[in-house]
């Protein structure tokens, strides 16, 4: 339906604005002084990015081939991504980075938390509908996370 396509496109723009503002806040905050510390990212977070992207790819095939199995595979990968994000958080905490430790970690917890919440919403959507727009949203979340990981690398 045209309506829902328009709406999801608009939703993605709105979400984009939230993360654009957080990006600009991060750039400014990092430039303020010498207190910015690099986060100890491990292979885990990179692997996790790949999981989310794989989930997107699976979903795209599921949509084209109308394959229910692939659709559920994509959902499972999505759920796996969320659980792994928690592991990433646990690693960060055990490395001594909590929410208030450093602006870099404050931003990371906030941004990954927000993104995770949006992914959770996407999972709920994928579980209840086969609409094309749900896949748009899901791809949007994958691309967003790819961008955010690049951003965090660049902000190291």
């Amino acid at each position, binding site marked *: 339906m045209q309506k829902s396509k*328009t709406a999801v496109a608009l939703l993605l723009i709105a979400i984009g604005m*939230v993360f654009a503002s957080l990006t600009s*806040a991060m750039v400014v905050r990092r430039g303020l002084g010498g207190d910015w510390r690099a986060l100890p990212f491990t292979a885990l977070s990179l692997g996790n990015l790949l999981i989310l992207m794989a989930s997107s790819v699976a979903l795209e095939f599921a949509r084209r081939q109308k394959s229910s199995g692939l659709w559920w595979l994509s959902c499972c990968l999505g759920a796996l991504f969320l659980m792994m994000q928690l592991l990433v958080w646990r690693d960060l905490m055990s490395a001594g980075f909590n929410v208030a430790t450093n602006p870099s970690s404050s931003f990371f917890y906030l941004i990954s938390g927000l993104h995770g919440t949006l992914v959770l919403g996407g999972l709920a959507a994928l579980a209840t509908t086969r609409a094309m727009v749900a896949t748009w949203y899901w791809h949007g979340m994958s691309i967003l996370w790819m961008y955010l990981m690049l951003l965090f690398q660049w902000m190291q």
Partner: protein
Amino acid sequence: MKIFSTDHKVIGKQYLTLAFFSVALGIVLSLIMRFHLIRPDAKISWFATLWPVGATGGIMTPELYLSLMSIHGTLMVFFVLSTAPQGGFGNYFLPLQIGAPKMAFPVLSMLSFWTTFLALMALLASFAVEGGAPLSGWTAYPPLSALGQVAGPGQGLGMDCWIVSIALFSIASLMGAINFITTILDMRTEGMNLMRMPLTCWGWFVTAIISLLAFGVLLAAGILLFMDRNLGTSFFIPAGLVVSDQLQNHSGGSPILWQHLFWFFGHPEVYIAILPGMGIVSTVLSVFARKPVFGYRAMVYAMFSIAILGFFVWGHHMFISGMSPYSSIAFSLITLAVGVPSAIKTFNWLGTIWGGKIRFTTSMLFALGFVSVFVSGGLTGLFLGQPAIDLYFHDTYFVVGHFHMIMGVAAIFAIFSAMYFWFPKMYGRMMNDNLGQVHFYLTFIGVYAIFIPMHFLGILGAPRRYADFKELEFLAKSGILQRITTYSAYCTAAAQLLFFGSYFYAKWRGPLATINPWDATTLEWTEPSESNVVNHAPDVYSLPGEEKDFVMQSDQ
């Protein structure tokens, strides 16, 4: 009437009711503030009853004054000006005017209303929590807003309520924006191409686009502020800050960062408040001048250029916050450039009524009043837009005068104009025009009497957000200005009772309205049974040689 209705008309009325409640409360708060400004030492027993801490013994503390001011501003900017014209009239009339059976997503409309309602409740709850309502105005500048109780009683839980309220409001506005844009893009009836939409619809459309891009920024900023307050982060709080003799345990943040984020939202927000009004006024002027809108396309393009430019001028709120003079000049130039599309609109309004057979209905008077206050307020914007002048005027009553004229009063006039205009459609009855005329003239004179003296106070250097001026020697002789303002405010507020009285009387007892009492052309004035295929522009009036002086959009 179902409470959780998905009917766009019901939702529109719900929004309007919420806005009417908020405006009434906002006015009461402002009257209390105005009273305090002329009688700062007065002992009022019911102050003590209402605010045992803020007004012990009946004498208002500066903190209480600031909290009244903050809730007044937040109510008016968000819950009145960003709610009534868009959520209220927009939900009700957008589908009717474009010939759609309903909004694109009725459930989303319902959700956005009830989220707005929750937001209002969260804001009002701040009066009840420990410490009372927040103190930092509608702009909530850190660092004081980011520190909690130590920065003042209302900066504790009250400030958290404020942030929650604003976050909910942002989410509701985003939902509304998605719904409006989709409705306009995908739900227009046959023949209703974009350039045949009434300018009201363009107003709602452009406003929705601005909301979509702006509210996410406010949401993000609100979350950061919330984290600074509750999770110990330091986004906005610098190191070594001492407040109330206590060293704050934060480091490295910057309050200016908040200002950038806030005003990146905040300036577009002022257009969210005014653009639907511009649309309404354009339509009303053309209906009652019996002439097509002068320069319809120019009006549309002007709205878009205002919207676009509006995203690049936020720095004009921060000239004094310490920015590079080069940025100041850039922001200043873009700010003054907004004057161009604004002037285009103004000239086109004048062009629309020029030579028309004007019918001076109440609705028309308020539309004309809108043009008047918009120009008066716009002129002072040209002063403020220049860094050298703004350094002096910033944070004085001059700014208060400017934005009340151009945003507060102008948008309220548009709401009144819309209310008098659409009342017959909404309730099937007519409001009394004589009462309306009296209401208009009292209000029109009243608002000038309130806000012109504020400009003088500002020129004298009276700072805004002060509870008490009696210690300031250089203002010793300005008491008369304060008194004029306060007494005018009393009278103007009293005049609004006329409106409320007339409104409720008409709703229940008013004479029945005909289907198209104003001889207007747009689709909401057709019989519901008629086809709504559109064949004409929204403003075809006074064709030479025709008996009937208007052509409805759906006429053959």
